[in-house]
């Protein structure tokens, strides 16, 4: 197993008290595998990624528990110095907004080359040649000339390619892409995702794709982990999850996607708001918004049950719902508020 996150907990000290951003997240990523981490803003998906990368702002952030095993080592036990040599070389991150993630006063060639200077101790000249090679790899036309350009001289899609090239520079084993296509328009999104997927196959890397876009996930991911209020609420192979979700929250998300055959009808929305991280409801954190909620949901935190029975079940499926079987069997596990007949 390439990466194993076990019971990770992260808190932030805020003015309104302690915000529990991540409350016991478990997930694994294998080499060559794409795990999509899905969730709303504030569900803890980015914070988990930052904790894995070791770029959490401490303080106010604080990792209060769990372990992050990367190729067998617990990253949380490494010294900052060792941690830094892992970052970039063995795991890399692609950020959401490529324009703001590239240094505006350095040419892209300098920034790409920096990877080789920092980690490999190359000369600037060799590093530049490597930068051109990388830009070719991510299919930037006329790389030899454009290597001297500044980030603002590139289009959005091109900039994201450069970010991808930077992340790929040292051929890491794991890439975390934090909403890599959110800032791009739809046609460019597809190109960038295809490129990322292709390079991942080529290098046999593990990829954690953080997104809130279910459409992006369907094409590239192998497995999905759905997060809510800092917990994984459901995990499943991507097609199983789309076919039959085993958690009412996932069901709600899927039903919220606009669809052509729903033309003219009101779009479904999950009722209520995500909970404040400073006051996560007791029991199942989704219960105030859940159409299936029973008394037990208000008191008992559901563990991640293995989904081993019922239709579309299988190994590797899990759901943090006390009534996952009902949800799995009854495709309308969202109660009376539903607008479908």
């Amino acid at each position: 197993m390439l990466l194993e996150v076990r019971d990770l907990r992260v808190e932030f000290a805020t003015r309104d008290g302690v915000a529990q951003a991540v409350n016991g997240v478990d997930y694994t990523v294998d080499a060559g595998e794409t795990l999509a981490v899905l969730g709303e803003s504030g569900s803890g998906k980015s914070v988990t990624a930052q904790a894995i990368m070791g770029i959490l702002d401490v303080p106010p952030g604080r990792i209060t528990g769990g372990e992050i095993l990367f190729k067998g080592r617990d990253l949380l036990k490494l010294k900052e110095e060792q941690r830094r040599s892992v970052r970039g070389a063995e795991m890399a991150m692609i950020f959401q907004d490529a324009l703001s993630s590239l240094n505006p006063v350095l040419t892209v060639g300098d920034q790409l080359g920096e990877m080789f200077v920092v980690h490999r101790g190359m000369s600037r000249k060799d590093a530049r040649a490597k930068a051109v090679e990388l830009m070719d790899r991510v299919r930037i036309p006329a790389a030899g000339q454009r290597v001297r350009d500044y980030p603002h001289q590139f289009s959005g899609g091109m900039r994201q390619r450069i970010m991808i090239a930077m992340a790929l520079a040292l051929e890491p084993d794991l890439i975390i892409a934090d909403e890599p296509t959110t800032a791009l328009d739809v046609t460019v999104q597809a190109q960038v995702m295809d490129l990322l997927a292709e390079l991942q196959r080529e290098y046999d890397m593990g990829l954690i794709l953080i997104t809130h876009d279910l459409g992006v996930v369907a094409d590239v991911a192998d497995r999905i982990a759905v997060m809510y209020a800092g917990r994984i609420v459901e995990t499943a192979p991507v097609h199983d999850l789309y076919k039959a979700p085993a958690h009412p929250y996932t069901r709600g998300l899927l039903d919220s996607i606009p669809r052509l055959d729903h033309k003219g009808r009101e779009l479904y929305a999950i009722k209520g708001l995500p909970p404040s991280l400073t006051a996560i409801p007791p029991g199942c954190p989704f219960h105030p918004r859940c159409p299936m909620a029973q008394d037990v949901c208000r008191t008992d935190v559901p563990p991640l049950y293995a989904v081993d029975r019922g239709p579309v079940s299988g190994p590797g499926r899990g759901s943090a719902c006390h009534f996952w079987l009902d949800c799995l069997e009854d495709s309308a596990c969202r109660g009376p508020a539903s607008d479908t007949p």
Partner: protein
Amino acid sequence: MPDVRRTNPGPDPESGDRRPGEHPPGDRPPGEHPPGDRPRGDWPDGGPDAEDGAVAGTGFGGSMDLATNEGRTLEDDPGPDGGGPSGRPRSLWSDAWRDLRRNPVFLVSALLILFLALIAMWPSLLTSGDPLDCDLALAQEGSRPGHPFGFNGQGCDVYTRTVYGARTSVTVGVCATLGVALLGGVLGALAGFFGGLWDALLSRLTDVFFAIPVVLGGLVLLSVVTSNSVWPVIGFMVLLGWPQISRISRGSVITAKQHDYVQAARALGASGPRMLLRHIAPNAIAPVIVVATIALGTYIALEATLSYLGVGLKPPTVSWGIDISSASPYIRNAPHMLLWPAGALAVTVLAFIMLGDAVRDALDPKLR
């Protein structure tokens, strides 16, 4: 040289003025681009190389090609200094320098400052007289051949004194600015980058210094100094001036620190000093340079102010401030005694402030 990047009509992949015969695609490996053989007219369509690369290399067509071409038209304007595609890589500074050379405000102020520096170093280039060679019989006399600016209250030649006064003013201005920029810039950057206790301490300390009125502080501190050199004045300016720069430096480092690219550099394995020096400092230094350049003018004026008040430089040092001070009682009888040194002071301060302005525009990558 025309500014191609701004006057270009924009990318147009279908532009009819392409001359495909001139550079048949494929006669040159992509990625290599010999300088000088590309006619200007080819730029709007991105040139045959870009076209070739975009279509053959990506096959994305449409929007991607457009984006590529846009990038190409924005690309470097090959200047004679070797900043072109085949030259050595451009940096922020070479770009800024190219912008500056075309800015008339910069040219005028730079010429003035150059001239000032020249006469500060070799005043004898412009005058053969001695600023301390005075004849009381000529006191307050007006202009006459050989003495274009007339004489001051002690019968000294105003022209010679004005020329010699430049040295003191420039020395004080430059040294005070360097001291302030180094001390304030470094302290502020460290405080901004590391934050915490060190930052809190420094911030309170700057508050204390901000609370000291400059002129009052000068009157108190410098009145006890008996030295006749410029150093106590420079020292006083650095002492009271560094908090201003430190605050600006701290602020811009904090702003730059929060940028995503610093986080990205961290995520890709950059160390603390590398982040500060390579990613934060170049993005944070521009405001420091600008404020320091403008402050240079004000330090020259401050020297004049302090000398006028009698606590700055003292005779027999020749300085504009001393001359303005000694001429002010006679402004009705002999205005020339005041106007020449005051005019020189005003022009010098203006030149440095204009320079600061031009540098600010050139260092802002977003204005490119």
